[in-house]
């Protein structure tokens, strides 16, 4: 918990630094700085969904509940990060495009991704029996992951209102010091993601213990 608070403080300080020190983008002005939250949140969430996919496959192969716990932990935290991505993107769109939302391929696929993973958590709530719940959830998680490549490559496959990537590409024009800031923020967000996942994972293990104790109590 203290690590998480320290990370949050570092992030906040970096935001203040970004707002005050970095120069404005030529066409978009100050709002462009939102990229330092918008993109790392998306990357962290997408990596989380990849981890959920691997954990779900491993659960189906090994039937070990630790993989199911990992899948649910990363999915839930990823949902919060994807919400950050969607909300910051919407605010950015309002300022630059003049609308809160546009039904273009990137935005729509990202929203579908959020709904799919929210469905994953709802499915888990609906099933009581642990093995059945984990199996169904693992299969559903694999199905939900099919949307992730669509989110990532939608801006290449279709003509979208959402801009093309501006960093880590040959055609991009992101300055080096901005890239450094972005990478640092990505690192901070990833660490925050990891810490939240660990907390959620611990909770999942405790909930499993509670399930076990409940059954024991019923037997007594």
């Amino acid at each position, binding site marked *: 918990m203290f690590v998480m608070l320290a990370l949050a403080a570092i992030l906040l300080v970096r935001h203040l630094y970004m707002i005050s020190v970095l120069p404005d983008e030529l066409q978009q002005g100050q*709002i462009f700085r939102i990229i330092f*939250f918008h993109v790392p949140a998306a990357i962290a969430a997408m990596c989380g969904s990849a981890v959920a996919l691997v954990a779900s496959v491993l659960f189906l192969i090994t039937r070990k509940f630790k993989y199911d716990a990992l899948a649910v932990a990363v999915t839930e935290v990823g949902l919060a990060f994807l919400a*950050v991505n969607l*909300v*910051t993107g919407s605010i950015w769109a309002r300022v630059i495009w003049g609308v809160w939302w546009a039904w273009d391929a990137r935005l729509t696929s990202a929203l579908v991704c959020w709904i799919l993973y929210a469905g994953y958590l709802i499915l888990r709530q609906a099933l009581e029996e642990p093995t059945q719940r984990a199996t169904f959830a693992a299969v559903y998680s694999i199905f939900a992951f099919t949307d992730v490549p669509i989110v990532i490559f939608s801006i290449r496959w279709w003509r979208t209102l959402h801009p093309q990537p501006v960093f880590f590409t040959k055609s991009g024009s992101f300055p080096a010091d901005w890239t450094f800031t972005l990478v640092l923020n990505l690192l901070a967000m990833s660490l925050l993601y990891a810490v939240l996942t660990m907390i959620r994972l611990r909770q999942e293990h405790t909930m499993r*213990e509670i399930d076990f104790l409940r059954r024991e109590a019923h037997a007594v």
Partner: protein
Amino acid sequence: MHLHALVPVLAFLQAESDPIRAEIGRLQRNFQGLIWGFVAAWVILLLYTLMLMLRERKIRREMERLKSMLQEGGKQ
């Protein structure tokens, strides 16, 4: 000098100030958008953390309740 002679001058000044005002408005909206974006992102993460903390408390309480229930059952 008649006042109507100032009309073109005033019209010129108004025409000049409108883009400036529009630019100031755009910059303000831009900055407000940035602040709202950061606030929204932090609020979402804080709400999620709060949700985790509340769940943690609930789980601990449930664990203690079950353990004490089992201990009492064991004694009997």
